[in-house]
């Protein structure tokens, strides 16, 4: 028998203090999903520089060397602190969406129905731990380090 949960009006932000764990999981999953789909379009746009690069388009990089436009675009983006910071944010968003997504797949299969709150908190804690542990890797090589 299917059941429907009346979530009320999420847009009424003053209600946030009444939200349950399930409501936060729903909001975070939507938010991270919007970010990831937005990033997917941006990612393909950036990778599209491979087309002129394969056709031989070269540019002079900051060291005065001739490199392909693809290599130069990625290297320029990766040398920018704000881009590295955004990548850490992207990792956080992707890891949470993956972990909460696994939780949703298990719930759909009827597994862990009684511990949905605990698994949501576990997704958050695990996301935090993975992101913190990944910061050194994501920030490597920035500022000549």
């Amino acid at each position: 028998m299917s059941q429907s949960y009346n979530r009320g009006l999420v847009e009424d932000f003053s209600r946030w203090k009444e939200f349950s764990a399930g409501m936060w999981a729903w909001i975070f999953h939507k938010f991270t999903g919007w970010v990831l789909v937005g990033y997917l379009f941006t990612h393909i746009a950036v990778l599209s520089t491979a087309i002129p690069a394969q056709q031989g388009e070269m540019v002079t990089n900051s060291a005065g060397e001739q490199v392909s436009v693809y290599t130069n675009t990625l290297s320029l983006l990766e040398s920018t602190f704000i881009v590295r910071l955004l990548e850490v944010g992207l990792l956080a968003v992707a890891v949470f969406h993956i972990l909460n997504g696994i939780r949703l797949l298990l719930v759909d299969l009827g597994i862990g129905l009684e511990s949905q709150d605990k698994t949501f908190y576990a997704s958050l804690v695990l996301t935090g731990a993975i992101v913190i542990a990944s910061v050194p890797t994501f920030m490597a090589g920035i500022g000549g380090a």
Partner: protein
Amino acid sequence: MSAGAPTSFERGGRMWLLQRVTAAFLVVVLAFHFFLLHFYHHAFEITLMGTQTRMQDVGYFATMWLFLVTATFHGVNGVYNALVNQGISGTPKTAVKAILGLAGLLLIAQGTRVALYMNGFLA
């Protein structure tokens, strides 16, 4: 149907299942993508030559192309579901379906084009 938020779920529909099947695939491939291009190779070390070498491997190329298709479907269908969930209906719903469908197809077309340039098939 009991009271609650509008749902994109249709009894007997395939979209609900496809959203979950693509999710299961993406969990694995997205994690692999992050590991390979941030932990094994570092993003700041990526060059055209390295990308070409990876994309010339048929298995890697096929995985990345399937990644593109499943991620686009999962993302675009997810946005559509979220909007249905917010209560969109009638003409706006039809328009959103058409726009998102077109955006998804264009993304897959451009992504495929980029991938074929990367592996040297197009030049």
